[in-house]
């Protein structure tokens, strides 16, 4: 196991940040800690890094108890949301900082920094200062700086949170490819479910100081363990006692067996796909379906039209969910 967190609790005064949290991060994986702000995910990451001390519980990094180690002895790399660039140092000196601290020979530092700058695609910017870089470049510099000392684990605290949407998309993609190259055990904290789903192979969903569910992105989507995960990960229609994802709602002929009568209330084009807002005849239940263009064209839907809906794929909350935790 890359990282093991056992029964960790942390309070700040009267506020409980973490309540008996246990997680395992497999070696070489890219795991996301996903949750709304205040869910405790950043505190958990900072405890793994040694920037906060847990009130109870323990942290193991590559099998070694790190609970009482200061940050500099844990062998972790950390990337902050606001870059934490050393403003008075050049990009080269920023990236080489950890190596210089370890008294590495100058020539070796130079070679290694050049390698890393190539890796994060900042070649040619080595002599610039952080203030002369864009936000995305600064964050890539921070990543190179963290990787320079060969950390056993890489911890990223909302690394793309301060960047604009387009740069964020690019960096997500880039981070995933980078991870395929360097394979260091990586934990990414984010509040953006799309980001977590896109980048990571495993997601730990947190809410109110607890872990709600752990699983592969598809598991969380298909088999949410709780109402919270269901609502937080992906779009959902809530039915009495059950839920169904909008793309699982099938539109059919009302006379077909298993289909119920419903009325099309509104059609809403959302880029590539279309949102069809429906009202079930039987009880007035409102829900919506997500349709691809060809399907929409085939059905030729109009507002006010009478259609059938097939909700066979609707599930009860918690069904199969226990399997999801071990599926990854």
């Amino acid at each position: 196991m890359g990282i093991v967190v056992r029964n960790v609790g942390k309070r700040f005064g009267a506020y409980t940040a973490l309540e008996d949290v246990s997680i395992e991060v497999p070696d070489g994986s890219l795991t996301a800690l996903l949750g709304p702000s205040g869910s405790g995910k950043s505190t958990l990451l900072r405890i793994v890094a040694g920037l906060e001390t847990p009130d109870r519980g323990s942290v193991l990094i590559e099998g070694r108890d790190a609970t009482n180690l200061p940050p500099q002895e844990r062998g972790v790399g950390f990337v902050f949301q606001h870059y934490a660039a050393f403003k008075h140092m050049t990009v080269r000196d920023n990236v080489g900082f950890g190596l210089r601290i370890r008294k590495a020979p100058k020539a070796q530092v130079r070679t290694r920094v050049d390698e890393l700058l190539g890796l994060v695609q900042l070649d040619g910017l080595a002599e610039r200062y952080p203030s002369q870089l864009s936000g995305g470049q600064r964050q890539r510099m921070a990543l190179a700086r963290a990787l320079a000392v060969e950390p056993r684990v890489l911890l990223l605290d909302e690394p793309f949170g301060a960047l604009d949407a387009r740069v964020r998309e690019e960096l997500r993609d880039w981070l995933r490819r980078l991870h395929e190259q360097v394979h260091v055990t990586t934990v990414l904290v984010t509040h953006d479910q799309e980001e977590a789903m896109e980048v990571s192979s495993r997601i730990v969903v947190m809410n109110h100081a607890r872990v709600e569910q752990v699983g592969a992105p598809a598991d969380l989507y298909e088999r949410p363990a709780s109402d919270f995960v269901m609502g937080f990960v992906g779009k959902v229609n809530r039915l009495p006692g059950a839920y169904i994802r909008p793309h699982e709602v099938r539109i059919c002929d009302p006379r077909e067996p298993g289909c119920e009568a419903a009325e099309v209330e509104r059609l809403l084009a959302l880029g590539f796909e279309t949102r069809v807002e429906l009202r079930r005849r039987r009880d007035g239940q409102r829900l919506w379906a997500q349709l691809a263009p060809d399907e929409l064209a085939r059905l030729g839907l109009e507002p006010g039209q009478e259609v059938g809906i097939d909700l066979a794929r609707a599930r009860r909350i918690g069904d199969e969910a226990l399997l999801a935790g071990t599926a990854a």
Partner: protein
Amino acid sequence: MSVAVDRAVPLPASRRGARRRVDGAPLLRGAVGAWLSLIVVLPLIAVAVRSLDNGLAGFWKAVTAPQAVAALQLSLVASVGVVAVNAVLGTLIAWVLIRDRFPGKAIVDALIDLPFALPTIVAGLTLIALYGPKSPLGVSVAYTRAGIVLALLFVTLPFVVRAVQPVLAELDAEVEEAAHALGASGWTTFRLVILPALLPAILSGAGLAFARAVGEFGSVVLISGNIPFRTEVAAVNIFTQVENNNPAAAAAISVVLLALAMAVLAAIALLERRSTRHERVD
């Protein structure tokens, strides 16, 4: 473009061990505590203890001696008056320096700090040069209370200006323009829009100026003539008591002076805490 991960600079073996970290924090706190105790706390405690050499009665006698009362009264009244004048004129100067434009403004702005940078004894001497017995203007305020007021105006000039300036610079001119656009006159805009925003800074600057003025010595000592009951300020009175080898009385008057200054500084601290809380709510 892959990086050979294993061929890296390893952590020195000694760092990997479970070696206890040497925590410097208590050491630093201890050093700071010892330093402040030795330099600031111990001397002030000495004054407080010495003021009670002859008991509470002795303390009371020393601070109610007619000459001491006259000196304390003079310092208090002059300081309040001077601070009031500089609160008004300091705000006005700050406004001119931020919102007005004219050639040589940078020099005028630098001039504001001169009373702070100039040694007090030199400040007193410069005032005597222009307003002393040999005044080329023919106005002499030497050996009068007006001289004291002049010296205190000089040394307390920077406080309000420097407190108000950054706040005024931050204050959006558009807010004022909006008030104008709504038909408010210049004075109304100032009273209802600008002044409330500046008030915490003005009071904070005025408080520091008062703490400075009430204990002022160097700039006053030459121009005032130090005539008991007329132009002797509290600090000069303490000085005289020390010279006359009466440290208990000097200490008693010092305690009163300290209490006045501390009360004002504490009030400012409270005010600042309150105004930052407001900002956080915003």
